[in-house]
C-alpha cells in the first residue's frame, strides 16, 4: 500500500506492506533508528512517538494507519541543532543511563507537559506508567520532567 506520512515536518511517501508497524517503517524503511523496540507489544514505551500531537506507541500502530498523519519522533525534537528543553532537562538532571528507553521517555514527557504544564510528582509518575526504565529507578526522569517544565514555562 502506498502511504504518505509527514514525519518531523518532512513528507515521506512509500509503498509498505500493511503488516509493517510504524516503528518498523521508521527504523527499516527510513533508517530513523532513534525510535526503539523494547517489547513490541505496547508495554514498554520505548517506541513512543507523537501522532498528530499525541504520544502513541508506534509498535502498536500500523504504518498504514498513520497514512496522512503528522508524526514526530525523537529525531524531530531538536530544532536547528539545539536540543528541545525536555532533552536539555534530561541531560541536566541525569535522566538517562543506557539511553535505550530515553527517546520514548522524552516523547511521552512532551505529552505529559502538553496537558499538565506544571505537573506534580504524582502527575509525572501517572504519566510515565507506560514507559519502562530499568536503569534510573525513574528518580531522575521525574526530576528531568519537572526541570523541563521550568525551562518551558520560563
Amino acid at each position, binding site marked *: 500500500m502506498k502511504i504518505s506520512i509527514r514525519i518531523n515536518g518532512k513528507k515521506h511517501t512509500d509503498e509498505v*506492506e500493511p*503488516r*509493517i508497524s510504524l516503528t518498523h517503517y521508521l*527504523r*527499516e524503511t527510513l*533508517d*530513523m*533508528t*532513534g*525510535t*526503539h*523496540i*523494547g*517489547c*513490541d*507489544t505496547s*508495554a*514498554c514505551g*520505548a517506541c513512543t512517538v507523537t501522532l498528530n500531537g499525541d504520544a502513541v506507541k508506534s509498535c502498536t500502530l500500523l504504518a498504514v494507519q498513520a497514512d496522512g498523519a503528522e508524526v514526530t*519522533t*525523537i*529525531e524531530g*525534537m*531538536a530544532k536547528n541543532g539545539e*536540543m528541545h528543553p525536555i*532533552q536539555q532537562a*534530561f*541531560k*541536566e538532571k*541525569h535522566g*538517562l*543511563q*543506557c*539511553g*535505550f*528507553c*530515553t*527517546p520514548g521517555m*522524552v516523547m511521552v514527557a512532551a505529552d505529559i507537559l502538553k496537558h499538565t504544564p506544571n505537573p506534580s*510528582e504524582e502527575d*509525572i*509518575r*501517572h504519566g*510515565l*506508567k507506560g*514507559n*519502562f*526504565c*530499568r*536503569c*534510573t*529507578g*525513574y*528518580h*531522575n*526522569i*521525574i526530576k528531568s520532567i519537572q526541570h523541563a517544565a521550568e525551562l518551558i514555562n520560563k
Partner: protein
Amino acid sequence: MGNYVGKPVKRREDARFLKGAGTYTDDIKLRKMTQSAFVRSPYAHAKILNIDTSEAKKAEGVVAVFTAQDGCGEFGVPCGWQVDFKNGETMREPKHPLLAKDKIRHVGEAVAIVIAESLELARDAAELVSVDYEELPAVTDPKKAMDKDAPLVHDDWKDNAAFDWCIGNDRAEVEAALEKAHHVTEMEFRNQRLAPNAMEPRSYIADYDVNGDKWTLYTSTQNPHLIRLLMCAFALGIPEQKVRVVSKDVGGGFGSKVYHYTEECLVTWASKEIGRPVKWTSDRSEAFLTDAQGRDHVVKSKMGFDKDGKIVAHLTDEYCAMGAYLSTFAPAIPTYLHGTLFQGVYTTPLIHLNVTAPFTHTVPVDAYRGAGRPEATYLLERIVSKGAREMGIDPTEIRFKNFIPPFDGVEQEGYQTQVALQYDSGNYEGVLKKGLEMLGYEDFRKEQSEARKNGKLIGVGFSTYIEGCGIAPSAVVGALGARAGLYEVGQVRVQPTGKVSVFTGSHSHGQGHETVFAQFVADKLGIPMDDIEIEHGDTDQVAFGMGTYGSRSLSVGGSAIMKSIDKILEKGAKIAAHKLEAAEEDLDYAEGKWTVKGTDKSVSFGDVSLTAYVPHDYPEGLEPGLDFSSFYDPANFTYPFGTHIAVVEVDADTGRVMLNRFIAVDDVGNIMNPMIVDGQIHGGVAQGVGQALLEEVVYDEGGQMITGSYMDYAMPRADDLPMIETANTVTPCPHNPLGVKGAGEAGTIGSTPAVVNAVVDALAHLGVTDIQMPLKPQTVWKAMQN
C-alpha cells in the same frame, strides 16, 4: 582533588542518546544483510523425533535454514568457571549446543535458524519448520530437581547435580555452636528467580568477509573481548585475530549481556556458510525464554545468638538452580560471589554454607545485578532482623552489637572473614548512624504506634549490607575455578597535539564511562576533559579487556588507565627535563605542565607530546611516542557497604504494599561523579525493590514459563517507587589508586531485605514473622490472615 573529580559533571554521551542518535546493534544495517528467526521449542523437556525444514526452505525470500544436522551441530558454547564437587569429582559440564539436536531441555531452546531477506520473511518461514517432539516430564524447582525420581536434565549422569560446594568453618563445629546457642532463629524460603530485562533486547550481526577470511561480530555485549575469546577458542575454533567484535552502545545489561550466547555464535558460523551478514535481534518473548536469569535459590538457614544478641553461629543449606546448561559464569554465582559474603558486616565467629547446584529444565541462571551477593545479603539481613524480633531486641541495636568495628585498611588491618575474604576497609556503624538520622527513627516509632491505633499498618526495615566487587585478583579467581583472568586493560595514547585517546577494556552500557573516565584522566593530566576521548567496545581498537560486570569498571578498569597515565607522566618528565635542561627530580607536574621547582620555567603537556612525536631535540636513548598500555590486576576485591532503610505502608484490606520512603546511605569509597553514583544507586534500588515487591519468574509443573511477558512479569513502573533519598560516607579503598569501590550493584544488593523487613515490621503485631518474596498483595494479605 582537581577540576573534575568529585563533581557532578554532565554526561558527554547524553546528546547522542537524547537525539535518538545512539548506535545500538539493531540500529546497524550492513550491505546484503540477511535477517534471521529461530524455531524454538514449546516444551521444557522433549525428545526431538524429526525436524522438517523442506517447506521453510522453499518459502519466499529464504536464504538458508540450518538445524543441528548442518555442521553447526558439533559446536557448543563453553562455561567459564569450574566448581568441582566437594568429594573431588569434576564439575558436570554438559555440552551447550548452538541448536538442540536430539533433546530439548528448556522452553525456548532453539532447534533451527531460518535466514531470509527480511525479518518478516524469516518469521513467516520459521512457522513452516515442522518439528515432532515427544514431550517428557520436567523439573524446574532446584530442590525438587535433587529428588530421587526427578526427571534428568542430562542423561549422562545419575542425578541432576552440576556440583556441590561448601565454605566456612567445619560444619560439625557450627552445628555444635548452634546446639549451645541461647537462641536459634530459623528461616526457610525461596530467593525467587528473576528476569534481568535490559530494555534493549540482545542483538547480533555477524559479517563474514570472504576475501579477507575475517569476521566482524556486532553484538550487544558487556564484554566484547571475552566473547571473542570464548567464541574463537572454545566454541567455533576460528583464529582469534581474524575476528573483530564490536559492541558500542548497549541498552542496559545488568549481567544478562555478560555471557556468550548460542545465538551470537550461530550467526557467526552462519555468516560464513551463506557468505552474507546475518542479523538476529531477540524479541521480548525470546528474551524472557532465553536471556540468562538470576537468583533461584531454595534456602534453609539457622542463626544462633547468645543471650546478649551476639551472633554465635550461622549454618545454611541451599539448592541453587543452574538451569538447563551452565552459562558462562553460572557456577561462580552461588559459590564464590555468594558464600564469600556470609560474614556480612558482623563478627559472626562460625559460619558454614553448603550449596547444591542442580540442573533444571529452565533457561540457564547466571549473574543478574548483584549476582550471589543479593541472595547472601537477603538471607543475612532478614535472619538478623528476625532473630532480633524473636529476642525482643531492636533491629538497629542487634546490628550495632554485632558490627565489625571500623577499620581503614591502612592503619588498621583488613578484616579477615570466616569465608575466605579479607575486607579492605569499612565503617559499618557509620552508615547506619547516618541512615537513622535521615530517617528520624524515634519519631518514626512514635508515628507507628499511633498509626496502629487507627488500624494503619506502617513499618520500617533495615539492611546493613556489604558486597564484594571489583572482581578481582586473577590468581585468586583462578584458584577458585575461573577460566579467565580478571584484570583490566587501559591504554592511554597521547596524540602529537597533546590530545588524549583512552582505550579501555571496560564496557559502558549506561554507566557513563565516557564522562567519568575522562574526569579523572583530565585531572590527573591537568588538561581539559574536552581534550580526552574514551574508546571502548571494539576489539580492534582496544588491546584486550575483561568487560564490565561486578561493579568493576572504575576500580579495575580505571586503575589500569591510572597505571598508564603514570607511565605517560614518567616518560613525559624525561622529555620535559631534556627540554628544560633540568633534572627529572627537580620537576613538578601540575595543571598540565612540568615546572622546574622554585622557578617559573615550565613546559606544557602539549609541547612535550609534540616533542615525543617530533623527536628532533630529544633525550638520548628514549623511544619516540607517548602511548602506554597497562594491565591492572587488583590486589583484592573491593567492599562497598551501606545502610538501606525502607518505610512502607500496607493496605490492611488488600495487602498491597506502598513504599513510602527509601533511604540509601552507601559507602562506595571515593566518588568520582556524585551525580552518576546517585543514578546507579537509584536504579539499583529500583531493581532490589522490584525483587522484594513485584518480580518473579514462574514456571508451572510442566516447565512452561507463565510469566513470559510484561502482562505477567511485574517490573517496577514509575508509580511503584518513591523518590530515593541518598547519602554517602566515604571510606576509601586502600588498594587501588583511585580509592574507589564500585557503585553499580550496591543499590540492588542492599535494598531488597530492607523492604521485606519493613513489611514484616508493619505486620509483626499481627503475628507475621516472614513472607515469601515477591510481596504480592495476595501473598501479604494471606500472611495477615494466618
